[in-house]
């Protein structure tokens, strides 16, 4: 089977590999969002598992425990847990990434208690004192893992894990480089499948498959240049191909993203510092998530550049000529960030379509007309 075939299988049967590992005696630790360092869990010979929802499955049990005005992604994840689909998790870790996930920690541990549960307080503010506080929180996390596993953290293994995840980041960036050409060598659908598959398997295995896939993609016959819009995608959770497929089937290429299931979770490396935790803290606290508050720069213009300069670079380097925001409803921080980012991108003369959605494939039909109209507008602009 081709590498992309294997990755697609893992994407379609999420949890399969982690379940196998759990059944063979490995400890699998499920976690939410981008703020739980995989490296720490891996250094304990455990398997980190990024918890995902299911956009195609109705949320039919969670309402008895959590309000419908909570983030539908988090509710979907919890719904799957209630149905037993996450019973292979030996541990559950929630970071204080947002109000909903903070509440979800309490709710999840009550209705689906796991042998190990932990909550990591992640500062919203950024600065030296926040770094130190987060480092203390991670030390506390390590101590709790040591207590539970009966093993001390092996610093050599910790350093190895940092190297491993940096390797994975490197190959994923290489994968993203294949999207720079016109047309891109890999589709947005394939990239989504690759990334989501990787969230549920050991990083070393993922690195191998992604490398193979990159080689396969490079060996494909060179596609003809097409004059279709190149889209930059921004938002929070897109762990299903449905929305990306809608864009690409409507006549565009999704070429770059800033999503918590996309570049946001892997883009920057961890510096290999003398004290491994320092590099981890520096990297994880500077993830560009709207839930983190960058200190204000002197003027509005500078402030926007300070907050979104990296997105500006993404747009230029990947030559995007339109941006689509996909905001999962009830995400207050994304809802507030959207208009600011739109202002920044419009300043770059980049048209923006802002979509708020329910984290459900059932709404795709309603979105089709809006996406198509947006793409037509870009095409006419060209």
């Amino acid at each position, binding site marked *: 089977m081709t590498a992309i075939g294997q990755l697609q299988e893992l994407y379609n049967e999420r949890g399969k590999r982690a379940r196998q590992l759990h059944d063979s005696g490995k400890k699998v630790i499920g976690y939410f969002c981008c703020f739980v360092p995989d490296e720490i869990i891996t250094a304990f010979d455990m398997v980190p598992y990024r918890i995902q929802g299911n956009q195609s499955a109705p949320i039919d049990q969670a309402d008895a425990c959590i309000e419908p005005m909570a983030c539908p992604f988090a509710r979907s994840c919890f719904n799957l847990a209630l149905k037993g689909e996450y019973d292979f998790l030996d541990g559950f870790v929630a970071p204080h990434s947002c109000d909903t996930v903070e509440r979800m920690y309490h709710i999840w541990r009550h209705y689906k208690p796991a042998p190990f549960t932990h909550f990591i307080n992640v500062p919203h503010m950024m600065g030296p004192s926040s770094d130190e506080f987060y480092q203390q929180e991670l030390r506390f996390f390590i101590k709790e893992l040591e207590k539970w596993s009966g093993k001390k953290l092996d610093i050599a293994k910790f350093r190895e894990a940092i190297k491993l995840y940096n390797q994975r980041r490197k190959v994923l960036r290489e994968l993203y480089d294949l999207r720079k050409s016109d047309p891109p060598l890999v589709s947005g659908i394939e990239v989504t499948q690759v990334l989501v598959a990787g969230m549920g398997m050991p990083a070393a295995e993922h690195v191998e498959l992604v490398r193979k896939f990159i080689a396969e993609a490079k060996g494909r016959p060179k596609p003809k240049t097409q004059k279709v819009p190149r889209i930059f995608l921004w938002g929070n959770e897109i762990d299903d191909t449905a929305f990306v497929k809608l864009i690409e089937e409507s006549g565009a290429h999704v070429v770059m993203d800033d999503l918590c299931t996309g570049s946001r979770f892997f883009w920057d490396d961890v510096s290999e510092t003398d004290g491994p935790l320092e590099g981890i803290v520096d990297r994880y606290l500077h993830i560009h998530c709207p839930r983190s508050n960058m200190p*204000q720069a002197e003027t509005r213009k500078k402030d926007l550049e300070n907050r979104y300069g990296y997105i500006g670079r993404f747009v230029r380097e990947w030559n995007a000529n339109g941006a689509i925001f996909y905001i999962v409803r009830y995400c207050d921080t994304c809802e507030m960030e959207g*208009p600011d980012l739109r202002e920044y991108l419009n300043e770059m003369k980049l048209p923006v379509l802002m979509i708020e959605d329910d984290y459900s494939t059932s709404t795709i039909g309603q979105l089709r007309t809006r996406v198509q109209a947006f793409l037509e507008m870009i095409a006419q602009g060209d």
Partner: protein
Amino acid sequence: MTVEEKGQAKTTAVKGTESAGKIRAMVKNIYRGAQEAKAQGKKVAYFMVASQYDEILRAMDVVPIPTENYAGLCAAKRDMDRFLLKAEADGYSQVLCSYTRIGLGFDSLRKDLGDIPEDSPDGGMPKPDMMLGSSSVCDPRFKWYQAAGRYMDVPTHSIDVVMPPVFSDLNEVRDYYIKYQKEQFQGLIAFLERQTGRKMDSDRLWETIRLGDEAWRLWYEIDRMRIAVPSPMPAQDHFNVMVPAYYYCGTKEAVNFFRGLYAEVKDKVDHKVGPIPEEKHRILYGGGLPPWHTLWIFNYFESFGAVFVIENVYRGYDPVEVPSNVKDPVEYLAWRTFLRLTQRHEKAKANSGNPVVERLLDMIKDYRIDGVVFHACRSCRATTIGQVHMKNQLGQFTDIPMMQLVSDMVDLRDYSEAQWKTQISAFIEALSARTA
């Protein structure tokens, strides 16, 4: 739909105490006072209630403008739509915190008009000299002022307010939580010193802390007197008297107000005077921001003999004792924050696992509660998510009736009077069945 079409011209509730009647003037004074201060060249700041930094602002003579309270005021005046719609036209989602939407919509209109929008409630909010956010309570409270930057280029500073998770070993985490909190306050002070051009005076800070603590001690004692039967002060009064506690924290006005309220409530307890002639059911307002657009609903409950005797929102903390060896006022504030936010951690660990459930269980027992009402606000994640779970948890300890009403704190589009009345009717029936 207009107010008249909805047939809901009335928003406020009849209060149980005379002291609560003084609050309207205090609210007016917040906004008019800020306008006057601005005209006199004093520094005025947008700020977030319950950020634990109130006394710092007072000690620096920075005049605070509570933007969330302004949203509640607009709702009570039924003058919120123009601000909500303006924010939504600017791209903010209709499910985003409605306090935030009103604030951003107001700032947007003020920018467009070049002046405070005409006939704004209580004269409106002046353009601030600075904005002070915080991560205390919810996410929008630090994002809001960042977003408001599109309407005004003013200095903005936010701080973290951190609470350890309930299952942590407090002895293990205490030092670094307090250290971080202290550093966050120090960062705020440094920012204020830059903005005001003056240094923080420690003696002055101790004085405002003393005033803040005294007001909150009196407030706590008043709430303990509310254990009495009949209730001397119903919840609709609480939603008024929180104004001096939160928006005048660190001032003599707050202390004086609570001294007067204390005397009045004590007198009512001594003479067994309640808000209605016959108190049949004692209700706990279990959580969720109040429906500022429809506070008269408390009187509607009273028409069935049901009085809200205590509430779990905009609530003060039980008094805490900071170790006497803490001699630095900023460190005192950091300690006080930690102790306030971990008050029921140990109890929760030993029982339900949830500090809020522990507080509710304490209230149910102490206040002889017959039923609990929650208010789910569609646009408030922080005070709404977890209510169903709390109801489930409470159900393991008590069999009293509980109900969740759904609307929003200020957005009337999420409210249905007919639906509420149907639910309330069924709830009263359940309460009556138990009494019978």
